[in-house]
C-alpha cells in the first residue's frame, strides 16, 4: 500500500512518465536516454535552487531572492575571474557571501518578526542591484578550468551524456536528502512548517533553524549561480529573472505543501524534471510556442494548490482537538 503522503510525488512522477511516453510516440529522438539526461544538465542550476527553496517552503516560508542571488553570484564570479583571481578563492568567497546574505535575511525574519516574502523581496532588490553595480554588461568568462569542466563528463551510447552539471546536481541532491531526512535540522524544518508554535513549545531551536534555512537557500542559490556561470560561460546581472518563480513552481509541482510541513526534497527534483520535460516537449513540437511553458506551469501550480486545499482540511480537522 502506498501512503497517502507520497501521492503528490507519485502523481507528478506519473505525469512525467506519461508525457515522456507521449513525446516518444510522437517524435523521433524524444524517448531517448539522451533527452532524459539532458534534463539534468539543462536544469541543474534550477534544481539546485529549488532544492534550497524546498527547505524554505517546508518550514512555512518563502524565498523570492534566489534568482537575484544567482545573477549576483554569476556576475561577481565572472568579474573576479576576469580580474585574475584564482578559482579556489573566488568560489568559496561567493558561496560565503551567499550564505551570509541568507543568514541576514533569516535574522530579519526571526528577530524582527517580518514576513519572509517582504524580506526576501527586499533581498531580491538588493542582490539584483548589487549585481548591476558590479557590472551592467554581460561578462564572458575565459578560463581553462571552465572549458575543461564543461567538456568533462561520461559519454554513454546514443550520444547520451552525463555532464559535470548533472553530477553536481546529484551530489547536492544526496546532501539535501541526508539533511532533510537524517539530520535534526531537517526534522526541525518539518516541525516548524507543521506548527511553528508547537515546534517552539517542543524546544525546537527556532532562531537557529530559521537562520539556517535562509542561509541554506541562499547558499544553494549561490552554488547554482556558479553552476549557471559554467553553463553560460558568463555572468550577467539580468540573468535568471523570474527564476525564483520557477523554483517555487517546481517545489509545488513536486508535491510540497506551500503552507509548509508536508513534502519531499526528491519531489522537487521530479517537479523540476517535469517542468524541463514540458519545455522539451514544446521545443520538439515546434508549432507550440515557448510561452506555453509558462502557461502549462501556471496551470500545474494552480491544480496542485487547489488539490492541496481539498486534501488538507480533512487532515487538519482530525488533527486538532476542539476546545
Amino acid at each position, binding site marked *: 500500500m502506498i501512503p497517502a503522503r507520497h501521492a503528490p510525488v507519485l502523481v507528478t512522477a506519473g505525469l512525467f512518465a506519461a508525457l515522456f511516453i507521449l513525446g516518444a510516440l510522437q517524435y523521433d529522438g524524444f524517448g531517448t536516454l539522451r533527452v532524459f539526461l539532458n534534463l539534468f544538465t539543462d536544469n541543474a542550476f534550477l534544481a539546485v535552487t529549488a532544492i534550497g527553496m524546498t527547505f524554505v517552503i517546508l518550514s512555512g516560508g*518563502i524565498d523570492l531572492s534566489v534568482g537575484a542571488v544567482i545573477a549576483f553570484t554569476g556576475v561577481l564570479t565572472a568579474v573576479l575571474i576576469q580580474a585574475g583571481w584564482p578559482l579556489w578563492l573566488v568560489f568559496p568567497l561567493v558561496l560565503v557571501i551567499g550564505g551570509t546574505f541568507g543568514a541576514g535575511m533569516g535574522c*530579519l525574519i526571526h*528577530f*524582527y*518578526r*517580518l*514576513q519572509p*516574502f*517582504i*524580506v526576501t*523581496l*527586499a*533581498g*531580491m*532588490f*538588493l542582490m*539584483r*542591484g*548589487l549585481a*548591476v*553595480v558590479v557590472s*551592467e554588461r554581460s561578462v564572458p568568462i575565459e578560463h581553462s578550468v571552465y572549458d575543461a569542466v564543461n567538456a568533462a563528463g561520461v559519454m554513454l551510447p546514443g550520444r547520451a551524456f552525463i555532464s559535470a552539471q548533472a553530477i553536481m546536481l546529484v551530489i547536492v541532491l544526496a546532501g539535501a536528502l541526508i539533511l532533510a531526512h537524517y539530520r535534526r535540522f531537517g526534522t526541525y524544518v518539518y516541525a516548524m512548517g507543521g506548527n511553528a508554535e508547537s515546534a517552539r513549545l517542543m524546544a525546537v531551536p527556532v532562531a537557529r533553524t530559521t537562520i539556517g534555512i535562509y542561509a541554506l537557500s541562499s547558499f544553494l542559490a549561490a552554488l547554482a549561480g556558479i553552476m549557471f556561470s559554467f553553463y553560460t560561460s558568463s555572468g550577467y546581472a539580468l540573468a535568471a*529573472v523570474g527564476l525564483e*518563480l*520557477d523554483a*517555487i*513552481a517546481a517545489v509545488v509541482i513536486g508535491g510540497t505543501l*506551500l*503552507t509548509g510541513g508536508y513534502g519531499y526534497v526528491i519531489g522537487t527534483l521530479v517537479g523540476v524534471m517535469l517542468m524541463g520535460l514540458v519545455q522539451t516537449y514544446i521545443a520538439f513540437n515546434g508549432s507550440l*510556442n*515557448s*510561452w*506555453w*511553458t*509558462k*502557461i502549462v*506551469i*501556471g*496551470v500545474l*501550480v*494552480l491544480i496542485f*494548490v*487547489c488539490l492541496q*486545499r481539498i486534501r488538507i482540511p480533512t487532515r487538519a480537522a482530525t488533527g486538532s482537538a476542539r476546545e
Partner: protein
Amino acid sequence: MTGPKSIISTLQRHGALWPLVALGLIWLVIIIVNPGFFAFTIQDGRVFGGVIDIFNRGAPVALIAIGMSLVIATGGIDLSVGAVMAIAGAVAANLIVGTDLPAPLIILAGLGAGLAAGLLNGTLVAGFGIQPIVATLILLVAGRGVAQLLNDGQIITFQNEAFAFVGVGTLLGLPMPVWLVLFVLAAMLLITRRTALGLFVEAVGANASASHYAGVPVRAIKLTVYAIAGLCAALAGLVATADIQGADANNVGLWIELDAILAVVIGGTSLMGGRYSLVLAVVGALIIQSLNTAVVLSGIPPKFNLVIKSAVIVAVLMLQSPVAQAQLASLRRRFTA
C-alpha cells in the same frame, strides 16, 4: 486654530507626516542638485516641469498602489499586477491591430481582462482559502505566458491616436496619466467612503474573525478588493501600452508589484492589514518615483537605483516592526536617563 502646530498634529494623526517629510527631503535634494527642476514652462498648451514629470512617470505605480492598498488592507497581497498589466496591454493591442473597434471599447476590453484576472485571484483567496501570496503567484507565473500567447510572442506595435491619448495625451495642460491617477484616486475615495466598503475592508483586515461574528460578508469583501486591484493593474497596463504604442508582454510592468507594495508600505499601511490610506499610497508612489529621479539627477549612476530602493524598504519595514520600535524606545530611555 490652524497654526503650523495643529497642521503638523493633524498630519501626524493621519500618519501623513513622515511620508510627506520624506517626499519633501527628496525634493530638497533634487532642488540642491538641480535648481531648475521645479520650474514650469508652458509649451503648445502643455505644462512641462520636473514635478509633472514625476507625476507622469509614477502614474502606473500610483494606479496599482491604489488597488494594492485595499488588498493589503484586508491582510492580503497581489503579486500578479505586473502580469495583469501585460495581459491588459496585449488584449488592447491585439484588438487595435485586429479589429476596427473604437478606442473606448478597446479600453473597456482591457479593463475587462484585468477584472477577470482579479476575480480569479479573489476566488482563489476568498473561495478556496488559498494564501494570497500563493494564489496571486499563479497568475504571476502564467499571466505573462498568456500575454505572450495573445501577442504570439511578438511586441505588437500599433498606430491609434485615440487609444494612445490614454498614455501620451494632454488634457487641460496636464498629461493624461496624471488625470487618470487623480480620477481613479477620487473615484476610489468616493466608493470607499460613500459605501460601506472602506469600513468593511479595514474591519476585515484588522480582525477577520470579529468581522465575521459581526455579520460582515468577509469573503465578498476579499473578492471585491482583488477585483479592484485587477482593474487598477489593467488601467496601468493600458497607460504603459499606450505610452510606447506597443504591447511588450515580457517587459511591461516588470517588478512593478514590488514598487506598488513598497509605495503602500511607505504610505504607512501595515502588511498585516487594517488601516490604509489611498492618498498616502499615491504619495508613496511619488516618493519612489522622486527617489528614482533624484538618483539620476544627483549624478549617482542609475545602476545604484535598486540598491538604494532595497535599503529604503528594509529601513521602512524595520521602523514599522514593533520589535524595532521597542528597541528604539529602550535606547531612547537609556540615553535620556
